[in-house]
């Protein structure tokens, strides 16, 4: 009995305070695993997060989720007040923006596929820049001849664009329905690859 008491979790209100303090102190999003590790034994992080998110709804600061990561962020509608704090980010080239969008919507996607969609070769610098921004990263290799590497988006990408999951990408459903996210090979080439690609893609967005 006495040992059990020692490891009894604090009351939920206290757990909520703790999660609040930890997330408030961090500029980086933290996932539930990291939070659990920082909290006393037996805490229910998911419930504490849910309560906290509710508490901050409508405040000047919101609790945002992206993927499994959680972070406090200022409310987007107050962005006009924040101009002073904003560090002007580099203007992205059109090539970089399009490449990012293609990776986001077609992930996992190979460089050859990106090039096919854009109709031009993708420069090394563009990929490097997106990797440096921590928006894209290498995924697993495609199980096709040559085993090309694929690219996927990162949790940092979701956090930056305020997306909870890749499924929240704008117009994703419409684009899928229109068949514009299929990897349709040029006529006369084998269909084999298509099946593989679809399978991978489903994994990613499911």
């Amino acid at each position, binding site marked *: 009995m006495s040992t059990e008491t020692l490891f009894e979790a604090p009351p939920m209100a206290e757990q909520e305070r703790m999660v609040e303090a930890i997330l*408030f*102190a*961090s*500029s*980086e999003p933290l996932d539930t695993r990291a939070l659990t590790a*920082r909290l006393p034994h037996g805490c229910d992080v998911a419930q504490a997060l849910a309560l906290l998110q509710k508490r901050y709804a409508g405040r000047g600061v*919101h609790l*945002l989720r992206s993927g499994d990561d959680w*972070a*406090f*962020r*200022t*409310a*987007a509608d107050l*962005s006009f007040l*924040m101009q002073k*704090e*904003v*560090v002007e*980010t580099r203007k*992205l080239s*059109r*090539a970089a*923006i*399009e490449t*990012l*969008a*293609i990776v*986001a*919507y077609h992930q996992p996607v190979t460089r050859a596929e990106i090039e*096919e*969609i*854009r*109709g*031009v070769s993708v420069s090394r610098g563009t990929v490097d820049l997106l990797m440096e921004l921590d928006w894209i990263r290498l995924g697993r290799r495609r199980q096709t001849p040559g085993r090309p590497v694929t690219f996927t988006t990162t949790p940092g990408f979701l*956090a*930056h*664009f*305020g*997306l909870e999951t890749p499924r929240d*990408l*704008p*117009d994703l459903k419409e*684009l899928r329905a*229109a068949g*514009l996210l299929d990897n*349709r090979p*040029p*006529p*006369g080439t084998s269909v084999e690859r298509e099946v593989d690609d679809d399978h991978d893609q489903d994994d990613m967005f499911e």
Partner: protein
Amino acid sequence: MPDDLLIRDRNERLAAEALVVDVGGYEGPLDVLLTLSRTQKVDLRRISMVELADQYLCFVDLAKELRIELAADYLVMAAWLAFLKSRLLLPPDPTEDGPSGEELAAHLAYQLERLEAMRNAAAKLMARDRLGRDFLARGQTEDVTMKRRIVYDASLVELLRAYAGVKTREDFQPLHYQRDAIYTMEQALERMKGLIGAVLDWSDLEEYLPEAWRLDPKKRRSALASTFAASLEMVKAGTVDMRQAETFGRIELRARA
């Protein structure tokens, strides 16, 4: 009819001209084709590929006239579009393999549509509220300070084993130096043989002990025993006489004449 053609031709030239001026601003032939296709003002799926091919070929011709260097892929696209156009206009040749003109045209239309869709998606993505611009992270972060505490651990067994180890190291040594305290009978016999010949008077056994073996009691004991045994050996051989006046008295010896 000819008027119509003329107007179309003029429109194409105008469109092409606009493109040629800024050819560096285009990201390849597909980009140019997408821009040209917009002049048709129809759904990309309903686009006239023959018309698009004409517009593109016109663009390439114009670039040539103006002596503007076009990258190789622009010319490859021109050749391919000329081929596509011929396929679309001529009746299908049953002897020829491969995809039909319609299939090729449909795929190009799909490519254009997909590129446009991706561009729109990219624009929507970039228009989202963005971290660091529209919503901000905590400015004054409190990082977790890592405190490293080192706990040294040792069990009683380890302690005992360590002591046993130290003691065992010591135990190996005596094997060598303990022998030093033993004066063998062979050594004593050798020494006696050298000395006794010159001594004809009775003399004390202890005087035959080597200098180095007299002080240390352990060594003295060993040397005395060996020297006595060696003396008995010499008596037996008949080279020495031995005597002792009383119990625990002095043991004396002399060479037998």
